[in-house]
């Protein structure tokens, strides 16, 4: 018994560190600053180690760690004011339909021409409450259920935030596509490259 207790912290830490990249990416996207991301992740790991007794073995450690990290983010960087920006006024925007309207065919070619840095920028422009849902579901592959548990909200809230976030993302990507010449909105043609 004494042996298993003395080994537990190392085992827990080792398992926790297998999720470091997920936590770091999440922190980087939330803070948009590498130094702040490292501070946030380090504090999250220290808190996780302190409260490891509350982690139930066999459950989703990645989700548990992410929840600690994002709660610290809101505590430290946003003063726990989560309802800072709403995306309610985005309206329906379906990039696929918009590209079809503009005559940009095949539509998927437009995506192939988009720079990863611009996609990241569009994600980082999302309000944090919506950004974190995209990070969990689209980037890290969380189920709606796991995302809901991580964020402490009902599944319906995850779905509605995800929907609005995707509308805004698609709108931003379309604007980037037009501004960068990937799509010619007025000519309704794809430029030849």
């Amino acid at each position, binding site marked *: 018994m004494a042996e298993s207790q003395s080994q537990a912290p*190392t085992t827990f830490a080792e398992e926790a560190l297998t999720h470091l*990249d997920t936590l770091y990416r999440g922190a980087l996207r939330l803070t948009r600053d590498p130094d702040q991301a490292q501070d946030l992740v380090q504090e999250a*790991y*220290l808190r996780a180690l302190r409260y490891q007794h509350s982690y139930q073995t066999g459950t989703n450690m990645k989700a548990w760690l992410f929840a600690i990290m994002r709660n610290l983010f809101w505590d430290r960087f946003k003063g726990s004011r989560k309802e800072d920006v709403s995306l309610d006024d985005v309206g329906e925007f379906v990039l696929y339909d918009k590209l079809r309207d503009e005559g940009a065919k095949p539509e998927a070619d437009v995506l192939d021409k988009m720079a*990863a840095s611009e996609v990241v920028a569009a994600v980082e422009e999302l309000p944090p409450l919506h950004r974190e849902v995209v990070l969990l579901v689209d*980037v890290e592959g969380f189920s709606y259920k796991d995302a809901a548990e991580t964020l402490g909200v009902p599944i319906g809230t995850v779905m509605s935030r995800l929907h609005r976030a995707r509308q805004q993302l698609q709108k931003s990507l379309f604007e980037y596509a037009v501004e960068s010449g990937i799509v010619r909105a007025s000519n309704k043609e794809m430029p030849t490259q």
Partner: protein
Amino acid sequence: MNCPDCKEKLDRYVDRELNSTEVLEVQLHLEGCPDCMDSYEFQTHLKRLIKHSCDCDTAPAAFREKLRQILS
């Protein structure tokens, strides 16, 4: 299933959040509807683009080692 029904379920289909009956309904519709199939493939492509654009960052090696020492 008609096109509006398919469109309403497409996000959850791409996210693998539909039950098996709904999945079958969407699959059957997609097989017979080129427009919805195009839209589905586009949504899948877009989701993959977002993932690959955002998941290329990894924790710096020095930071990983620092954490390893702190936590040990």
